[in-house]
């Protein structure tokens, strides 16, 4: 027994890495399903807030993430655009991460093709602007002055979907897909607090607890946390996709990590000195 515990204590962490890798890859490769995804009240809040928007509304879609958090943010970005386009809501995309522009372009293009939406008429991507919170407060004064051209270099005055859009007063909702800073917190502080625009947010799992106070205070109407939140939202939108497939892998990974905590404590139990007697 003591040999076994000693071996456990000296376990090369590469065995742990291998086990995690296999547990994550297996459901994705073989497609077996562990449990259905049940939407939480936070995801329902996100979905219902967009459902309540009248057709023809205009939404600012802030895709503030980059490929690093693609696994968590991209599925929720995709599902959000699906719901918005299904409801014939106009989309104005902005990004505060320079590497997020191609991701936003991809999402709008892919879903736009699904729903027959036209770039410039039904949606536009204004692209990236340096300045973080300054960009947000500048948009509060004038969006066309902050983004005089879109991500393709086309002047916004020539883009039909931007007609009549001057500042946040013409924006019916902000949908923030965020990896961290700058992101959801800054949108709440700079825009929601000052201009009282309704907002929903999709964020990474590790940062989701930070936004619970905003959700409780009503500054956010819905919140998606990580890939789990994205999967819940996909179910609500009616098109389970990347995130839903990933939840089976995540389930196994979580169980394995819990098992590792137990195993680690068992391994070091043997180190405890015997009681004097």
């Amino acid at each position, binding site marked *: 027994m003591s040999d076994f515990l000693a071996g456990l204590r000296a376990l090369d962490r590469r065995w742990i890495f291998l086990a995690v890798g296999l547990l*994550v890859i297996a459901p994705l490769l073989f497609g077996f399903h562990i449990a*259905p995804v049940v939407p939480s009240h936070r995801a329902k809040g996100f979905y219902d807030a967009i459902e309540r928007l009248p057709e023809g509304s205009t939404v600012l879609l802030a895709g503030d993430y980059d490929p690093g958090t693609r*696994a968590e943010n991209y599925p929720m970005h995709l599902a959000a655009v699906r719901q918005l386009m299904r409801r014939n809501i106009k989309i104005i995309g902005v990004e505060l991460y320079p590497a997020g522009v191609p991701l936003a372009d991809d999402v709008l293009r892919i879903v736009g093709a699904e729903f027959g939406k036209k770039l410039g008429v039904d949606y536009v991507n204004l692209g990236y602007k340096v300045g973080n919170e300054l960009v947000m407060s500048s948009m509060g004064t004038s969006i066309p002055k902050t983004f005089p051209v879109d991500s393709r270099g086309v002047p916004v005055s020539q883009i039909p979907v931007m007609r009549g859009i001057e500042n946040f007063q013409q924006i019916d909702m902000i949908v923030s897909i965020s990896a961290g800073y700058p992101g959801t917190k800054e949108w709440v502080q700079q825009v929601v607090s000052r201009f009282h625009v309704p907002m929903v947010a999709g964020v990474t799992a590790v940062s989701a607890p930070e936004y619970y*106070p905003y959700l409780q205070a009503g500054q956010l109407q819905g919140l998606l946390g990580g890939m789990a939140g994205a999967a819940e939202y996909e179910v609500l939108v009616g098109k389970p996709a990347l995130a839903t497939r990933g939840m089976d892998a995540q389930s196994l990974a979580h*169980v394995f990590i819990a098992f*590792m*905590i137990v195993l680690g404590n068992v391994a070091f139990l043997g180190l405890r000195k015997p009681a004097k007697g």
Partner: protein
Amino acid sequence: MKRTVPFFITLLSGLFCLVAFFVPHPWIHDSYGAVQTWAIVVVGCTYVLGVANLLRINVRQAQRREGDWIYKIVLILGLLVTMAVGFSEGNHYSDVTSRFQWIYRTFYSPMTSTMFALLAFFIASAAFRAFRIRSPEAMLLAIAAFILMLGRVPLGNAISHYIPDAADWLMEIPQNAAKRGILIGAALGVMATGIRVILGLEKAYGGGGGEGGT
């Protein structure tokens, strides 16, 4: 002089920004907006210094054939080629078919995602190595961790719907309360540090040691 001038600039601009927080009048606020814009410009200019430093160090290490010098050459080539391709494509750099986008999709995007994905492996090894249940508080923490890890995935709901409910309660009540306490303390720490810097009590950040050195 080298240390006095920066500290006066810090004092005046710090006090000005404090006043601008409370005074919305355009006489103050327009200047505050200009100060913020200039700060972005100054930071943008430092990118030139940063790239120069990057090239200087890596070129020198490659020339001297220091350890892993091949990777230094890969870095230098990657930097120069990406910049050249991006500049050559002008406004069309964001087109789906552009060469810049090819570099982004082929190299940058998968590599960045991969680094983030490493977290899954490291969390498992950290959980095995370091999560020791040595006290009642650590036991409570472990129980909360188990509930949360199960509650956040469909498996938890499949076992019992109480698990995600318990996970939600843990996150919304005790976690929120503790986090708010930490945030209040941290915010006071920010105030104290900021005041020390503005009033010149803390000079070290500007490259001046002076009082209070170790």
